[in-house]
């Protein structure tokens, strides 16, 4: 081969490489810019509005879907250094509380600041309620508009084989009148999720490990995640309200108002691909009976009861056990019939 062709090949390879590097610099995304699409965080107001958190190129936004679910409007947007962790409607649906935090959490207790905001649905005005130097993960209003929240004291990996997660959880309360916060429990739990508040605000409910009596490491490994009732005035007197003999963990849950029924998420079976299938179940506290509610064979989570107590909203992760999640919002009747996906992204920004 002549030298001329050698130089042509070399020049071609160098040109292609330079072009690829330039394209790389143009389209490379930082970790902060990568998140896209719907998250698990949503709530349904008593008036039928659905508020949900979605990301565009790493920037979080809160959208509110109209009652007729014809369109969604962006009501809150933040920079891509922030995350929005939860949203909760007030009892009359006129206000929406949400948590914002820094996306990049430094090791252990540094940079764990969380801000709780309050959005007026009518005026769209946002007010900063309070800031805490902890990681607030969930919040919930009671019917008398008391605000409760879960706060994690640390964000780290307790074990070298685990990823960094929030730990040392406790339940807190925000007093609107005195503009003050106080800690209800002193449990420092390894994990605590799915905060719910009783209608009168006298009790809060969370899902956590039933390991109070665990004495050995084996006892801790054998402990299951159950639903606990914690009286606000007597938090030490907590009790399990789900089936105490259930051998599978319970995760997200919701109470059906006016009944003794709890709808919760749990593993139904292992799929043919070896991945757990998470479904929703109904549990009757009076009769201590359980029935499987959904049969989607996927990852079904976050049950939320809609207005009139006849509709169930939930999230399905279409990419569960894969690198990136793909959350979709679904709706069904309370008995699990008429499962319908809701296309939240027919959105219109204000």
């Amino acid at each position, binding site marked *: *081969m002549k030298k001329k062709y*050698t130089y042509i*090949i*070399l020049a071609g*390879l160098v040109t*292609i*490489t330079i072009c*690829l*590097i330039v*394209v*790389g*610099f143009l*389209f*490379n*995304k930082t970790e902060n*810019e*990568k998140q896209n699409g719907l998250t698990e965080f949503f709530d349904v107001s008593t008036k039928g509005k659905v508020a949900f958190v979605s990301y565009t190129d790493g920037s979080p936004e809160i959208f509110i879907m109209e009652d007729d679910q014809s369109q969604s409007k962006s009501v809150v947007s933040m920079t891509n250094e922030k995350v929005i962790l939860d949203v909760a409607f007030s009892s009359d649906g006129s206000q929406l509380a949400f948590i914002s935090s820094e996306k990049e959490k430094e090791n252990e207790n540094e940079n764990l600041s969380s801000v709780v905001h309050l959005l007026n649905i009518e005026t769209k005005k946002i007010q900063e309620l309070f800031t805490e130097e902890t990681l607030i993960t969930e919040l919930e209003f009671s019917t008398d508009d008391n605000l409760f929240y879960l706060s994690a004291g640390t964000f780290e990996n307790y074990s*070298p*084989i685990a990823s960094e997660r929030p730990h040392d959880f406790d339940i807190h309360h925000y007093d609107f009148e005195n503009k003050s916060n106080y800690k209800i429990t002193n449990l420092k739990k390894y994990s605590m999720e799915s905060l719910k508040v009783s209608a009168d605000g006298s009790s809060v409910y969370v899902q956590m490990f039933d390991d109070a009596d665990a004495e050995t490491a084996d006892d801790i490994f054998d402990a299951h995640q159950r639903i606990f009732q914690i009286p606000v005035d007597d938090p030490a007197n907590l009790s399990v309200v789900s089936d105490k003999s259930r051998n599978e963990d319970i995760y997200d849950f919701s109470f059906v108002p006016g009944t003794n029924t709890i709808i919760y998420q749990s593993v139904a079976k292992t799929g043919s691909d070896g991945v757990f299938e998470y479904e929703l179940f109904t549990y009757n506290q009076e009769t201590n009976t359980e029935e499987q509610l959904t049969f989607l064979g996927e990852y079904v989570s976050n049950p939320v009861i809609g207005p009139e107590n006849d509709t169930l909203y939930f999230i399905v992760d279409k*990419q569960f056990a*894969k*690198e*990136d999640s793909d959350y979709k919002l679904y709706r069904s009747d309370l008995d699990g019939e008429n499962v319908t996906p809701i296309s939240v992204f027919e959105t219109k920004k204000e």
Partner: protein
Amino acid sequence: MSSKMERYVKQIVEQTECSKDEKDDLYEELFIHLQLSQEQFVKEGLSEPEAEEKAIEDFGQEDVIGDQLQQAMFPYRREMLLGLSMASILFTISVYLSQLITEGDAYIPWLLISISISSLLLFISLNKLPQLNRKRWTNSILIIHLLVYLYGWSLASGIDHIVTVVLVLWAWLIILLSLFLVYRTTLHDFQPNGNPLSKKVKLLHVINMTIGIIIIGLTLFFLWAMLAFSGGIELRMLLFGLPFVIWVVLYIAQMKLVKKNKKSAFFMTAISILIVLSIVFYSFIMPMFIY
């Protein structure tokens, strides 16, 4: 200053991928042949320079002769290297762009290293880098290529798109071809002083290279696990390189010993095998019985 004939023969020899000893042998053989031819033309009435010119002309174009010799000595070697380098370059571009489009990650250092190493193989196959036409150089480049494309395989499998299936398969074909060429270069081509390798030496090469692959594979696996669990590079990670160092030392020692004391060489081979077996036993088999 070398004569025209010397320069001509040297150019032919440089077209081949022989070792230095093989090239010396080949040079001598071709040079004698051309000298005899030149003498014949002198006897036929030509002057010395004319006879030299005529002998070279009759022998043929140096590029063509060199290429034919290369093909005769190492059949399909050039084609395989060419195929490997082209497939590698296309794979690199595909994986780089797929990662960028689907994941938003530009792996620029990997792009530069993999394009460079594949281009080196391309120019070796096109015989444009005769100074690298040595077995040790080619093998070293192939081993680096292998490691670079093992990383490429991990990038291909991390793409969250259906295209990942094709890219992973493509990566394995590149890795297997690269591995095959390492074995082939060592076993088929490595013939110092023109003497074919004895069966025992070939056997030692096969065993040691296979042990090497297992040791490198296990070392990379444990390093990955250590990095995943500790989250950072630590000095004690250097200890993971110890089996590799022992393997290299034992391999070199066996090759030195095999000519003088075959028993000692094979005793060292047994030590290498025992090291690999003990790593596999303590790391994988024993935990299966414990848990």
